């Protein structure tokens, strides 16, 4: 016969300080781990989700990102009519010539950050299909107008729609704000490509191209054809692969988070084990009595395991809740967490505890509960009834 759940619960409540302290350990470990997991997953969401699976990015051979690339006008003109490129509603090829510059922006609290400014033509909105104008309108070419990403609007001085923003050599009118499903394009500012080239005094107007493949076209074959073209030393790559590569700079952080979760998890296991051993020791007589009454070893084992699991899940609930609140507080107080992309520009990360982060934290507390409870529970189950009663 199994012991009722109330028995395990009652045991936890009987030693309140001890239970509270152990629960505190689990909760704090869950809190710390969840916060860092949220950071990593928010980073991943922002950096890796960027890029459309139908798009190619074309850069100069050897360039590792569009900030360090440049390509001639005639390459753009010729590439537009390559086979396998999608056409827009107006029949024009969906090839977006772009120039990337990283000027200083002033943050609202007086700091200074590099922000990625992308010079584009109107076709960019059709090629980057995730981008949507959510406030205001698209800029008019050659009129000193810009549109800003969601992450930019709240973080920098003069970056809200209707305001004027200073960067590069001039002052620009913000006429629109765009969203892009939370990816890193939202940390960018878009402006007319020719105007940007003039402002940055770039001799070559474009740093790279974004190409949308026609439905059903073979992207890799198209990329190969562009790369093999002998007139210009170009290199084409899937946009998704390009952004995955860019996010590698966060690898050190992933490593730290995993290490931290494992090590602090082991610490919490030690704490839980300690508490339950003490509780087994204090209840030797009681366990002996239960055994003498006919409760099986299995019943005792599971009662103690349940006790440990109850403690761990309460810790998880408290820690997870705090992590969720803290992440929201940090994100709103700082206007997003800044992270440096490989191009030395700022990616604004919206720190947010996701469902998957909570699942990992739940797994961690489950392991803490199971492993921390196992050895004390085993000791309790192995007590011989006669000895236990005599010792007491």
């Amino acid at each position, binding site marked *: 016969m199994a012991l009722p759940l109330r028995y395990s619960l009652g045991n936890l409540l009987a030693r309140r300080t001890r239970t509270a302290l152990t629960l505190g350990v689990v909760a704090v470990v869950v809190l710390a781990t969840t916060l860092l997991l949220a950071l990593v997953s928010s980073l991943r969401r922002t950096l890796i989700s960027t890029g459309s699976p139908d798009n190619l990015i074309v850069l100069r051979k050897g360039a590792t990102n569009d900030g360090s690339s440049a390509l001639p006008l005639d390459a753009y003109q010729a590439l537009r009519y390559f086979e396998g490129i999608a056409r827009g509603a107006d029949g024009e090829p969906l090839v977006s010539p772009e120039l990337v510059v990283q000027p200083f922006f002033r943050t609202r609290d007086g700091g200074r950050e590099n922000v990625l400014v992308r010079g584009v033509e109107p076709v960019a909105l059709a090629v980057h299909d995730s981008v949507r104008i959510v406030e205001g309108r698209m800029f008019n070419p050659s009129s000193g107008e810009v549109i800003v990403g969601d992450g930019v609007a709240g973080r920098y001085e003069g970056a809200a729609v209707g305001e004027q923003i200073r*960067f590069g050599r001039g002052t620009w009118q913000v006429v629109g704000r765009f969203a892009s499903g939370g990816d890193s394009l939202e940390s960018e500012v878009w402006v007319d490509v020719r105007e940007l080239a003039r402002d940055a005094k770039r001799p070559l107007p474009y740093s790279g191209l974004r190409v949308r493949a026609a439905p059903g076209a073979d992207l890799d074959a198209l990329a190969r054809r562009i790369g093999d073209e002998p007139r210009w030393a170009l290199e084409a790559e899937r946009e998704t692969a390009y952004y995955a590569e860019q996010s590698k700079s966060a*690898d050190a952080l992933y490593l730290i988070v995993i290490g931290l979760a494992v090590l602090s998890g082991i610490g919490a296991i030690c704490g839980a084990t300690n508490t339950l051993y*003490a509780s087994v020791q204090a209840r030797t007589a009681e366990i002996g009595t239960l055994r003498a009454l006919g409760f099986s070893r299995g019943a005792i084992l599971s009662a103690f395991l349940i006790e440990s699991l109850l403690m761990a899940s309460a810790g998880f609930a408290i820690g997870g809740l705090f992590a969720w609140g803290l992440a929201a507080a940090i994100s709103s107080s700082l206007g997003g967490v800044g*992270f440096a992309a490989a191009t030395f520009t700022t990616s604004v990360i919206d720190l947010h505890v996701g469902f998957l982060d909570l699942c990992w934290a739940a797994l961690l507390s489950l392991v803490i509960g199971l492993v921390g409870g196992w050895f004390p529970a085993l000791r309790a189950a192995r007590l011989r009834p006669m000895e236990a009663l005599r010792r007491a």
Partner: protein
Amino acid sequence: MSWGSLLWRNLARNKLRSALTGGAIALAIALVCFLATMPDGMNRLLEQFASGTRVVVHNEAGLVYPLPYAYLQKVRAMRGVVAATSWTWFGGVFVDEEGVSFPNFAIEPDQVGVVFEDYGIAPEALAEFRSRRDAALVGRATLRRYGWKPGDLVTLKGTVFPVDLRFRIVGEIPSERAPHFWFQREYLEQAVAASGGRLDFLGTIWVRVDDPARVDPLLREIDETFHNSEAQTSTETEKSYFKNFFGMLEGLVMLIMIVTALVAVCIVFIAANTASMTVRERMREIAILKSIGFSRRLVFGMLVGEATLLATLAGAVGAFASLGLSQLVRAAAGGWNPAMGPLASFIVTNTILVEGLFLAFFIGMLSGVVPSLGAARRGVVQTLREVF
């Protein structure tokens, strides 16, 4: 039996519990020490490695906006300027897959030794750097990462300029925190000219000022000089430059500090839990000790001493382990990281070790106080009656 051995015996009484508590505290201290290296790396960069008499001139619009090369001569001619050298980003790639894995710059070799006097570059290395066209000076961290040594030949593929350059490493920049790879500007100029281009700009100018009092006037003078020209400058001290450059990491630093504090709180819970369990189980013997004449103060001291000893020992193990942990992470992910800057230096300094040890000591003491106070105060008669 001395007090020391009494404490030790008491700890050894429940070996499993002491080991579990000690292990948990050691782990937590190791984590705290390791996490502390990240904000510490930033602080050190700003407080110690940024020189008070070194200033940097860059384009007001941004670091990727170049300055005309003629600016260097104009700055060098200004009053109070002891030496100046320009840096131009080459963006050279050593291993294709890694991208730009250390910052490499074209610089003028003649005055770099004076501008970066505090880096302690050997005079022979500087002399050879000046005399060889293809010479390169490389930071210690980068040398170690690729197993290079002076005399080695290294080819970097240019990403900003369409040229590949082969260098001979002539010396080390002997600082753990300097990942730089410096080479002669003239070498790059010739290569760019050979490929049909022209290198007539520079990235930043680093200036050594003769007198700290002259720094502020010079900052203004430089910016005023170039105010109405084709490229306006922004001149600032090295400290302010780094602060701005890594300003975007502020949120990350804050998050790491929160997590570090949380782990420290965890240690308090673990230690307090053990102390309270220990005291509860020893009610009887504490009452007996008191009834045969041991003072409250002694009993209290003994119990607190036990908690403190355990935490401090565990803290020492943990602090020591953090050295190994940081080395492991450095090997796996260290080196120059454009995304994390000085946060990714992962160097456990002596200060961090001592702080970790003190943290363990204080937490041990703190966690022992409450339960021990209760035990010391409890009436003897009452306890003995309850227990027997």
